[in-house]
């Protein structure tokens, strides 16, 4: 089909998409410029380095070993915690779907875990597990909440008249689940999985602050305490950029699922 659209139409489309993206790019550009200028004129003191210094720190080969080691530790914890959390969240959502009387109790429990600041659970984890596992545990817990809420609300999302139709046609419960509730829930679960990305990073970083041996969170804290300013900013920039890229990728997955099922 793309070959059939005339050149002027395509040019117009290109122009429109540029016009839509331009303010965003200008906004981000101004942000980077402000970061650079505040840093180079020391408007916020010595602890605010120019953007170029932070990028210089990230690309300097001398720091590659330190950064890759920290980043791979953190990423492994994020991945593990994310998978465990998503698994538990989905499992709980399916369990309360199968056994409805348990729903209210699990809802309260999960909401309580969400409202409890992650750090309040840290002493419990310190007792239960090795300190290197704490980031994974806090990450998993935070992800569990989001996925549970997304999956339960997604499973509840089937329209009344569809449910009635299935009942009238004499569908078995598992048929209703597989053919109606599963497809309705998938878009909600996909957007839950997207929103869980920054949450997973947050949980892991907080867990690392609680005494992990290595990781980006540890670099942040030691950079903060020892005035290693470029390292502090580089660790934060690396964390946020990685989280953003993964978030954007999950956004693509979310859109694909939505196109297929919604």
């Amino acid at each position: 089909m793309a070959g059939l659209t005339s050149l002027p139409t395509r040019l117009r489309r290109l122009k429109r998409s540029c016009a839509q993206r331009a303010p965003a790019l200008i906004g981000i550009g101004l942000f980077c410029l402000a970061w650079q200028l505040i840093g180079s004129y020391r408007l916020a003191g010595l602890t605010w380095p120019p953007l170029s210094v932070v990028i210089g720190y990230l690309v300097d080969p001398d720091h590659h070993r330190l950064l890759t080691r920290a980043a791979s530790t953190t990423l492994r914890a994020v991945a593990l915690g994310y998978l465990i959390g998503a698994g538990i969240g989905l499992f709980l959502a399916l369990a309360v779907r199968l056994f409805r009387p348990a729903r209210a109790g699990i809802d309260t429990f999960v909401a309580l875990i969400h409202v409890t600041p992650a750090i309040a659970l840290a002493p419990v984890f310190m007792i239960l597990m090795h300190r290197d596992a704490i980031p994974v545990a806090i990450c998993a817990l935070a992800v569990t909440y989001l996925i549970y809420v997304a999956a339960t609300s997604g499973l509840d999302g089937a329209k009344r008249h569809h449910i009635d139709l299935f009942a009238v046609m004499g569908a078995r419960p598992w048929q209703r689940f597989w053919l109606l509730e599963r497809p309705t829930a998938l878009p909600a679960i996909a957007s839950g999985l997207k929103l869980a990305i920054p949450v997973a990073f947050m949980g892991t970083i907080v867990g690392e602050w609680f005494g992990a041996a290595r990781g980006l969170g540890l670099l942040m804290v030691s950079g903060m305490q020892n005035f290693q300013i470029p390292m502090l900013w580089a660790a934060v920039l690396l964390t946020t950029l990685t989280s953003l890229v993964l978030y954007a990728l999950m956004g693509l997955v979310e859109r694909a699922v939505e196109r297929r099922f919604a």
Partner: protein
Amino acid sequence: MNRLVPFLSRYWAVLLLVVVWHAWVTLGDLNSIVLPAPLPVLADVVTHPALYLTNAAQTMATALAGVAIGVLLGAFVAILAWASRLLAGLLTPLGLIFSSVPIVALIPILARVLGYDISTVVAIVAVSAFFPTFVFTGAGLRDLPRATDDLFKVLGATPWGRLRHLVLPATVPNVMISLRLTVPEGVLAAILAEFLMGRSGLGFMFREAASRFAMERALGTSLVVTLAAVLFFTLAHRAERAVKARWS
């Protein structure tokens, strides 16, 4: 009995957790340095009311101030972005980016740039509340039916009149939802900031207790933190419902 069943059906999982905890300590015959039972933890809170209360009051006051500042600023900037397409174009992408990064990662930077101070904790909480509020309230304003705005213009409403009678009423319910959404993260940000900077508040109590393995104190602090967070969240939820009933 009539009240017990709904109570149990809502809280059975929480109660089960406490029972398992208690059983585990008693049956496992654990040392209180490893894991104290629920009762001694509660006893530590009850027998040191002043210590817990002053620190909790400080943490909650800083968290409340920070969330209030962040939410109000976020709503204010969202209204500015509603009024100016240029600002909307420049700020919305930045807002989206910042509301989808793990904002707690900024705590060490803010602590270093602003200094180890209680006002820094307020600023950190405000930053964590600002971006989600800006994005959420802004989306609410963009969803205003075009026709209402046109009607206001046709009837000759001044920009101020449109702001007063159209935009503000539409903003208030969204602000209340933002408040509920940002309160848990605000409390977390406040406690993390206190934990990292280590001056005062529940976050500091926590760090101090954990470092000398005073598990009763550490878990007591967890309990108080959780209670305070639940209280905050419930209040925000109530306020949201009250405002919703009044404004729509």
